[in-house]
């Protein structure tokens, strides 16, 4: 490289840095050899969620025991396991509710989940549905969705918030999707159990998360509602990544559609016991033993 070209390059860089404020975490020029840490989700390596060697113990009891798990971008992963296998604890770790004793948890390849708080984790695109449907009981269905709508979460922004036409349309679409259009002005506490589940799923989708964690989403639903839920989840697959924890094997069957490419993970005593297609897993001797206690 000739000196002139080097000078021109330096000038161009200075010009660039003057215009684009350098991001603090990227380390400016020093980081040019590695990946640039921007705080944005980076799924270039294929994985959206990566858990490595996570251990959580409560008073000596290991709820998670060196759990390692990786979810691909756009994947719909079903997780099954007997009671106390650590399914909910795993979700607690991912969403920041519980801190593991050891291990790593990454969202994409750059965001360390263990350094963030619950609300930050929700803001970067991980939505969670609780086992017990949790909606805002004294607000209307419409207001529930409005609060979940993607918008500035700060205090002053909330005080002066006004719904735009596009946002109103988005809430309308969601009401139709979760079959609650006629109940929009009803108080959420008056909904049936299944409807609350749907509302909570609707609230998750309003946040437009990249990864959805669904803890027993069809508990208490009628067969018809369960079927519709399975359809909904399958329509989300690809654009979103989903992790579904469920006991209902029929529902799992609907979600995996009998395709061997769809993976099911079996948890047992805080770590992965088996992973593979539903048929493989069901045929696995260890899984049968755990479930039937033989």
């Amino acid at each position, binding site marked *: 490289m000739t000196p002139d070209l080097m000078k021109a390059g330096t000038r161009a860089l200075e010009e660039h840095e003057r215009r684009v404020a350098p991001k603090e975490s990227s380390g400016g020029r020093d980081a040019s050899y590695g990946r640039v840490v921007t705080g944005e989700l980076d799924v270039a390596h294929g994985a959206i969620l990566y858990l490595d060697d996570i251990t959580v113990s409560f008073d000596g009891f290991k709820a998670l025991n060196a759990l390692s798990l990786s979810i691909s971008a756009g994947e719909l992963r079903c997780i099954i396991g007997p009671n106390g296998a650590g399914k909910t604890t795993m979700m607690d770790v991912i*969403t920041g509710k519980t801190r593991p004793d050891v291990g790593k948890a990454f969202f994409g390849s750059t965001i360390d989940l263990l350094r963030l*708080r*619950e*609300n930050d984790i*929700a*803001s970067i695109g991980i*939505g*969670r549905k*609780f086992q017990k449907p*949790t*909606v*805002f*009981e*004294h*607000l*209307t269905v*419409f*207001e529930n969705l*409005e*609060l*979940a709508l993607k918008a500035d*979460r*700060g*205090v002053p922004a*909330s*005080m*002066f*918030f*006004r*719904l735009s036409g596009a946002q*109103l*349309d988005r*809430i*309308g*679409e969601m*009401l*139709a*999707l979760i079959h609650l*259009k006629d109940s*929009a*002005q009803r108080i959420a506490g008056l909904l049936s159990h299944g409807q609350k589940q749907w509302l*909570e799923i609707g*609230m998750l989708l309003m*946040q437009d998360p990249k990864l959805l964690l669904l803890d027993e989403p069809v508990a208490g639903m009628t067969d018809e509602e369960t079927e519709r839920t399975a359809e909904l989840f399958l329509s989300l697959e690809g654009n979103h990544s989903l992790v579904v924890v469920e006991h209902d094997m029929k529902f799992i069957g609907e979600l995996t559609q009998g395709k061997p490419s769809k993976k099911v993970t079996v948890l047992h005593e805080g770590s992965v016991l088996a992973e593979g297609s539903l048929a493989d897993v069901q045929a696995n001797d260890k899984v049968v033993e755990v479930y039937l206690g033989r």
Partner: protein
Amino acid sequence: MSAVLPMAAVAPPTRALSMKSWFGVFAALIVVVVLAPVLNLLVPDGNVFHMSDYAVALVGKIMCYAICALAMDLIWGYTGILSLGHGVFFALGGYAMGMYLMRQIGRDGQYKSDMPDFMVFLNWKEYPWHWLVSDSFIAQMLLVVLVPGLLAFVFGFFAFRSRIKGVYFSIITQAMTFAAMLLFFRNETGFGGNNGFTDFKRILGIPVATPSMRMFLFVLTGLTLIGFYLFARWLIASKFGRVLQAIRDAEGRVMFTGYDPIRYKLTIWVISAVMCGIAGALYVPQVGIINPSEMSPAASIEMAIWAAVGGRATLIGPIVGAFFVNGAKSWFTQAFPEFWLYFLGALFIAVTLFLPQGIIGLVRRAKKETKV
């Protein structure tokens, strides 16, 4: 996706107040600004329509309490955080005002000294540090807002960050006001010990004990109450208000929806404390005394009772509750002084058992039944 036509029916009303409520606010304004002054100052004594000075003082005092009840409703009724220590914010606002009023006494005190009587009594030669700006009206008015606000901010920051909730939070607030009371009881603290401040003579050089000054303070308190009511209505009608109610119903969900509950709780907690501080500052010149008993645990618990009796999470209810309970108190303590506390306890139990929505809930139910 679906047709978007029926959205008008789906969208909630965005107005903070209905036409009827605006009419009510307007009526309250007329009563406070026109009716009360005319009936008190212009209608002669002895006429049936005359409003006595006693009534002016009583209603003025109750309006200060009503501001506190409104503040309680924001933090308890809407956010679900029961504070049993709001008396400390009320008293701090009152003390900030009282310090200025003490300086205004000048040499008219018993000891004919430049210093307030209690300092002469303690043989103090100069003002302690926290009295340095007390001769400035503007500085003390700023302190009315800043001191309760700052205490609430620091206390709230640590309590909310440590995720202290429910009854634990209530107990800690109770302990806070009790500790403050013990501190203010000490003569060395420099706030007049258990006598507090009294015998005020002037405010901004104008005598406090004249009918017109009393009426001015009455109108000012009424306007403050109406202003705070409208402010609270606006807050609750905004998305901010709905987040508060969401925190009350399911804080975990709020967090996993991406909101930081600490910021929301801290904001409403400080707003509520500042409202109480301002109420205290309006209270002191009207009642003519401030002492540490305002920080007693019972005083703070009473505020919660006003809100509960009137009806939580209604905004208007706690104002009604403050008027009802304190009106009953002033009548009871004259008629059957020894039975007041029994009555208050019975009232609280009755409301909890039979009127979970308080007086306002009762009125709404009656309205519904007459309609059907």
